[in-house]
């Protein structure tokens, strides 16, 4: 028998009303409580059934092709190895500096000076800093090419992310009212990420980069906690 308090928690969980910490705690409980899991699933199904108060409508026939183009676009625009070399080099340089602790402004400027002397001059490197304690051990570097409007994010030592949430990268462009999404960051092997990104639409400048925790699927503007910021 599920007591009333647990029922209310399950309802708030389904409606997305729990705080991230409370949701995480509830998910742990769900994992070990089959009755509660079943109850929560039934609530979710009931809530989703509200969709059936609408009629099915026909989207334009070309929409599916548009979606296919979008989901395949990273494949099509995949960088050839030769063009990726400078990116990898810059990312390695930035990561090495972080590892060695040379992330202060002076050293960064030295690297920038070096970079300006060669073909990497147009690359901007940002080390992102944790905004919350739980992310203080995370190594986070963005390499950005303003001219080509594309970048590379590398994250290491990420703490676990509760289910139902994604990391999302943002570009703060002073010319925009709201941060511009650069996409959901796919996590590899649990605690790292290597993410080639493009902004949702071209930016005039990338003054800052930020990573936030958003509900699964991400948001069009940041809604969740900002965990990393760099400029």
């Amino acid at each position, binding site marked *: 028998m599920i007591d009333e308090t647990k*029922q*209310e928690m399950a*309802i708030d969980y*389904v*409606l997305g*009303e729990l705080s991230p910490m409370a949701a995480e705690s509830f998910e742990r409980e769900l994992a070990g409580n089959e009755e509660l*899991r079943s*109850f929560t*699933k*039934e*609530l*979710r*199904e*009931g*809530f*989703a*059934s*509200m*969709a*059936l*108060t*609408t*009629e*099915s*409508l*026909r*989207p*334009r026939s070309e*929409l*599916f092709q*548009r*979606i*296919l183009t*979008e*989901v395949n676009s990273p494949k099509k625009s995949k960088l050839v190895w030769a063009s990726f070399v400078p990116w990898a080099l810059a990312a390695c340089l930035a990561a090495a500096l972080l590892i060695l602790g040379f992330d202060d402004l002076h050293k960064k400027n030295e690297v920038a000076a070096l970079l300006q002397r060669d073909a990497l001059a147009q690359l901007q490197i940002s080390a992102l800093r944790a905004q919350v304690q739980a992310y203080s051990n995370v190594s986070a570097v963005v390499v950005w090419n303003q001219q080509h409007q594309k970048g590379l994010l590398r994250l290491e030592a990420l703490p676990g992310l509760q289910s139902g949430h994604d990391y999302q990268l943002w570009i703060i462009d002073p010319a925009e*009212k*709201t941060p511009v999404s650069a996409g*959901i960051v*796919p996590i590899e092997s649990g605690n790292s990420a290597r993410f080639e990104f493009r902004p949702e639409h071209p930016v005039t400048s990338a003054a800052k980069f930020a990573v936030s925790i958003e*509900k*699964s*699927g*991400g*948001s*069009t*503007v940041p*809604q969740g906690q900002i965990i990393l910021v760099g400029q």
Partner: protein
Amino acid sequence: MIGRKMTPAMDEAAERYNIELLQRIGKGDEAAFAAFYDRLAPILYGVAFRMMNDAAEAEDVLQEGFSYIWRQASTYDQNQSSTFAWAIMIVRNKAIDRLRMRQRVERLQQRMTSFEGVTPERDDESALEPFLRERRAQVRAALIEVPPEQRQALELSFFSDLTHEQIAAQLGAPLGTIKARIRRGLLRLRQIFQQST
């Protein structure tokens, strides 16, 4: 329908097929993606259109939703939700994000596109539509049993981007009352579906 096990939207065989499609999509199967789209796009588009009240924006929501489904199909967990509920909640979240962005940037100017003033056509041809039609009738019948104030709070909670506080303000009722209405309505819906499966 008696004796046939159902999720809230479809029968067991249809659900098994949807799960198989998601498993194939997770492996990059475009044909499975197309089949999943054909089955669910009309109801998802209906939800998106009701929320956005704009055909072009509803299509954008659908595009974002299906792009997400493509990327995340392999993470679908049937212990957590049916394929229908999973897809519905993805599209609903995408629509809410857009509604909130629309508010934030105060983008009141409508897009000047060929969609202006267009209401999409009904779609009765998807393979899932027979199940959905039957279930739709059950949901509507079930909602008649839910007191109007609970139904109204549930509808606002599902289809709008309003927080519970905003729903309370809009309906001129205390927050605690609104939360209680939504909870009671949701428990009632769950009870109705338990009886019918």
